Each structure stands twice: as C-alpha cells, then as structure tokens.
C-alpha cells in the first residue's frame, strides 16, 4: 500500500513540476523579450540601467 502511495505521490509531484516547467518555458517564448527598444532620438546608447 505504501509503495503504491509513494509511486502515486511521486507521479503527481513529477507531473506538476513537468507541467510547470513546460508552461514556463513556452510562455516565456511567447511573451515579448524585455530589453529596451531602440530610440533613434536619444543622444547616446546607454550601456545599461542600474537599479
């Protein structure tokens, strides 16, 4: 009984992690990437943005 439960539990946890991973990867590919867009009017291209 214990081994059936642990097998079932592990499959549930594994399924959740697998689903979360796939959903996360796929949704990150479909959302726009977050780096700053070009602005031809700015006087200089900045190296980056510091918090």
């Amino acid at each position, binding site marked *: 009984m*214990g*081994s059936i439960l*642990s*097998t079932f*539990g*592990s*499959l549930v*946890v*594994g399924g959740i*992690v*697998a689903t*979360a*991973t796939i959903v*996360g*990867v796929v*949704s*990150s*590919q479909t*959302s726009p*990437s*977050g*780096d*700053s*867009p*070009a*602005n*031809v*009017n*700015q*006087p*200089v*291209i*900045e*190296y*980056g*943005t*510091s*918090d």
Partner: protein
Amino acid sequence: MKRWHGWVTPTWSLLLAVLLLGPALGSGYLLTYDMVWVPDLAMRPDFWGLGSGLPRAVPSDAVVAVVDEVVPGWLLQKAVLLASLVVGGLGAARWLPPESLSGRLVAVSIYQWNPLVTERLAIGHWPVLVGYAVLPWLALAARRWRRDGGGLPLLLVLVPLGSLSVSAGLATALTLLAFGWRGRSRGDAALGGLLVAGNAPWLVTGLLHTGDATTDRAGAALFALSGSGALPAPLAALGLGGSWNAEVVLPSREGPLSWVALGLVTAAVWGGWRAWSASADRRDLVAFGLCWTFGLGAALLTWAAPDLVAWAGATLPGAGVLRDGARSLVLCAPLLAVLAGHGAAEAVRRLPGDGAPRLVAAGVLVVLPVTVLPDAAWGLGGRLRPADFPADYVAAQESVATAVADGQKGDVLLLPLASYRQPEWNHHRKVLDPLGRFLSPDFVASDELVVSGVAVAGEDPRVARVAAGLALPDAAARARALAAEGIGLVVVDETAPGSSPLPAGRTLLDAGELRVLALDGVRERRIPTGWYAAAVLAWAAYGGALAGGLVSAGLARRRRRAAPASRGTGL
C-alpha cells in the same frame, strides 16, 4: 554502474546548453552588449596590450585573432559558447562520484542554468564564461597537483585558458591557489610561476598603463551588486544573481520564482552539506569555502561599501576590476553546484524503494533549475539572436584596407564618439560598436559608459585628447588635431545617434550608412621599444605555458593508450 550512465550526463549537459543558447547557435554573429565577434578578427598591436588604453580585452582578442585563422569567426563563437556551458557543467559533475547519476545531473543543471550564466551571456562577457567553465576542472587538476604532484599538463592548459580577461584571471588564480597550495616551497613556487605565466599578457601590459589604471568614482555605485526584483542584493547573490544591469536580468528573477529558487538552493545546499561534509576531504572543503567566501565577499563589498570601492578604483591602479560585483560570483558557483548535487543524491537515496518514486524525484530535482528560471530557454527568451553584418561594413573594410595598402598611415577613429550602438540590423540589440573589430587597423573609440543617464568616464587618455580635438570649431583644425593624435582614417556610422563633428579629409567611401574619411599629415603613434620587449616576454610566457600544456597532455594521453598494448605484448 551501468554502461549507459556514462552517456547520460554529457547528453543532458549538451541538451541544456542547446536549449539555453537556442537561436544563438544559428547562422550569423551573436552581438550583445560587450560580445563582439566578426568574420575575421585581424591581429593588431592593441590586441597585444600595446594600445593607449588599459588592456581590457587582453588576451581574449589576440587569442580569437589567432584561432580564427583556422576556424571561421562565426563557428568559433558558437563553439566557444556551447563549450563554455557543456565543459563547465561536466566539470561540476566530476566532483560527484560516477555512481551518483542524479547528483551529477543536478550539478550540471545548477552550473549551466543559473542567473549568473544568463546574465553574463546576455551582457556578452564570454571570457568570464570561459573562465567559469574552467573553474571546476582547474579545482580538480589543482587538487591532484596538491596530492601527488600530477596534473601539471592540464594545469598548463587550464590556467591560460581561464585567464582570458582580468576578472577571469583573478578567479582562476584564486581557485588554483586555494586547491593547489601545498605549503611546500618548490611545488608552490611552480604554481606561482604558472599563475604569472597564465596571466602575464594582461598583467604585464596592464603595468605598462599603471598611470591610467584608475577608474571614475561614478562607476562603483552603478556597477555594484544589485537586488533582483523583490530579492535584496545579498539574497540575490546567494542564488548567483545580482547583476547591476537590470536590462540583462530575466523577468522570472523579478517575481516570486526568484524566492522559490532561493529556497530550493538553500535546501539543496543544506542537504548537500550534511551529506558530503563528513566524507569530503577537509582540504577541499577549505578550498571551496575560501573561493565561495571571497567571491561572495567581493560581490557584497560593492553593494555594502560602494564609496570604499569608488575610492579604491580611483586611487589604486587596477582596483576598478572589482567594481562589477556580480562578476566575482563565479567563485561561488562550483561549491553551490557540488553541494546541490550531493544534496539531491542524498534526497533520492533516502526515498523508499528503488523504482518510480526515486526516478521521478531524481527527474524533478534535475529539472528544477529550469523550472524556476524558465525564460532562460531558447536564447534567453529570444534575446540572443545572431545577425549578419550589413554590406556597408564590408565596403568600409575594403575601403580602409585599400587605403592602408596605398600607404595611408595612422589608426582608425570611430564616430560618433560613443561606446555602444543599437543597430537595426542587429535586431535593435545593444552592442559595443563592432566596427573597430570588423576593420583591420588599431582603432580609437569612446570608452565612456553611460548608465541610467550617468556618464562613467573612460581611462584612455588618447580618447580624451581625440574628443578635445573633435570639439575644435572648424573642420581643418579638427583634422590637424586628429592627425597629431595618430588618427589617419575616420569611419562615421551615420545611423548611430549622437553628433559627429567631422574633420576635413578626403572621402574614401560614402555608402549611406558608413562614411570613410582619410586624413593627411598623420603623426603615427609611437610605441616605446620597452613596451614591445615587455609584451614579447609576457606573451612568450603565456603561449609557452599553453603550448607546453597541450604537447605534454597529448604525449601523456599517447602513453596511456600505448600502455595496455605494451602490457599485452609482454614488453
């Protein structure tokens, strides 16, 4: 151990690397922030460290310029990026016993798929990534050296390879000393000699620029370790995050997933410590601990005491290398991956039975680093897209080459005088102006960095003098000032923002996007003979170590292969 186990770890490592790089492995050149690769990087005095500014890209540029004579630039770039990930991951896995497959796979996942890798990849610090890949192997080789004096050929290769930039060289040096120091004068002297040889190009040529090796105070606060989203900087650093540049931080690091990742890392490290510390070699633990403490400490220092870092950078020549706090976290990664691997292996071992529960648990633990950083997939969510250089670049290259062949003297000046570009042909991605490396002569470009509206002054005094010359009121005066600074050719990127006060000169090319001007009366920049002598010695030491290591590693491999055959014939 089953035979197929040997293939699982390399396969997983390669799969992760391909998933991470994704489109970056496609046709073209990946140009992102400081990462500039061109079809054929021509060797020039600046790459040897003989330029007027600090040798920031020494020896990496020279190494690429030599190797891309054999391997095309585009292929070399992809090989370097892919190998940096795979080699690093497999090196971390080597610290776990072969029978611990789940532990090895987790170590690979942690080492290859973390914020440090994604942020350094996005900002284009590829020499740091090469050094990062070298670290676990270097630790293994240095440990062997410490124990029985073996592994020297591998050390001779790894130290120069891991020292392609100043910061990578420092991490390599610390790791080598931490793991290889024996406390016996002869062996340690050899180690010290190897360190000096492997770092000689930037060390020696950097010493030639000591007078200009201090940095602008403004940079310390801007480049300090930074928090990620709701994670404060110290906690971000524990999970290998904390880049100063918010533009290269993935969105998942700014949300609740970063807290989940931190919790998982903490649990894995705690579990790993309990499982491994009792059986591990004490000396290895001390070495790992030293590297981790120094890496985290250096990173935290930039966050906690930016004024101190600013003072050091502005006062002590070379101290500015410490101002990018998150970069020193490379020293923390090996211990983190090894502990996580041991923690995972122990967790799997403790599960009852040996069937599905263990298999699923192992799979979950191996995949979790991807789960909590999903937007790293496929080229950081599409950020890493290669590009092809436009035809105007080739036209400018030919124009400059023809002018030089016809006797035009002097270096190239890149205008507008600004460090970064964001060209349309590069998918509007920011990149350090790639034009200079695309051309053959030495070039002068802006070394000023603008971050969040604050300008951080560069160190090259020649750039400052060129800027002063460009500020003169008429074109003829500008031309005379530039020629006196050794500028013979001016290449103007018409698409880049910023004004370009042009000097009077002959137009060699007006291709729409790029203009090439030639100046007369050029007074060529003189490089002191002593500088050449110093550079030759430094590069001889570097090349000698690398070549010696490769030859002796090849011979040792040959001997090992021949040994069973000899035994078989009774010889």
